[in-house]
């Protein structure tokens, strides 16, 4: 298995956390992982994204030009990354903030009302967990849901740890979608 995943959205949507969580979970399951946030040209208040590689083999390059999986949480991210997804790849997009459909038909595009569902679970800030749960459902070989849930306490800073109950619920909710 070799998957190059890009998570993308606003700063503040927990994009980096999604990446870290799946990395920790996959690592614990014995896979090779790398995570690299975009931090380059962007200034404050811009978009955020991170590149995650999960692989059975040693990871040569941690950079991803053509992701096999892309999770986009807002519109600018859809614009920015849709093109780059590998043919046959997976695109999860957050319809709570994206009011149009991906235009490509050579990829698998899966909508998710992440913000709304997160709100339902108790906090809109766990929208990223909804999307991540869904991803785990669609690509179970990446990592087990349980592994991700148990990675939560490690990856979330003390200050925000109280949110983990809702995060867990949201992960499960996302995982339950189909």
């Amino acid at each position: 298995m070799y998957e190059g995943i890009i998570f993308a959205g606003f700063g503040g949507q927990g994009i980096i956390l999604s990446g870290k969580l799946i990395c920790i979970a996959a690592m614990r399951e014995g896979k090779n992982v790398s995570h690299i946030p975009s931090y380059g040209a962007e200034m404050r208040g811009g978009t955020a994204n991170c590149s995650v590689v999960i692989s059975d083999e040693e990871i040569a390059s941690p950079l991803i030009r053509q992701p096999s999986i892309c999770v986009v949480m807002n519109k600018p991210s859809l614009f920015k990354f849709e093109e780059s997804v590998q043919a046959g790849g997976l695109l999860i997009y957050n319809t709570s903030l994206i009011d149009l459909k991906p235009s490509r038909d050579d990829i698998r595009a899966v909508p998710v009302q992440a913000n709304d569902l997160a709100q339902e679970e108790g906090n809109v800030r766990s929208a990223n967990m909804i999307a991540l749960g869904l991803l785990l459902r669609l690509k179970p070989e990446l990592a087990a849901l349980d592994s991700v849930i148990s990675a939560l306490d490690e990856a979330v800073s003390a200050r925000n740890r109280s949110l983990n109950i809702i995060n867990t619920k949201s992960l499960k909710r996302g995982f339950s979608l189909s």
Partner: protein
Amino acid sequence: MAKGKPGIDIERCKGCALCIEACPEKILKMSESFNRQGQPYTICFEPERCTSCMSCAIICPDSAIRIWRYVAV
């Protein structure tokens, strides 16, 4: 009777709410929807009460507010 009105550029607004605090008439509030940058923005819910005091505009870091004043012709 309205003395004036704020003109809020909702695409410039970043939703910091400083104007809401600053308005002596307390006639500004945060929108429930989001602008194109994904931010909530300020709206004036009772423009009639605006005194055109300019407080909201003065404090706006994003120059998102203009103030119009009504003057007798």
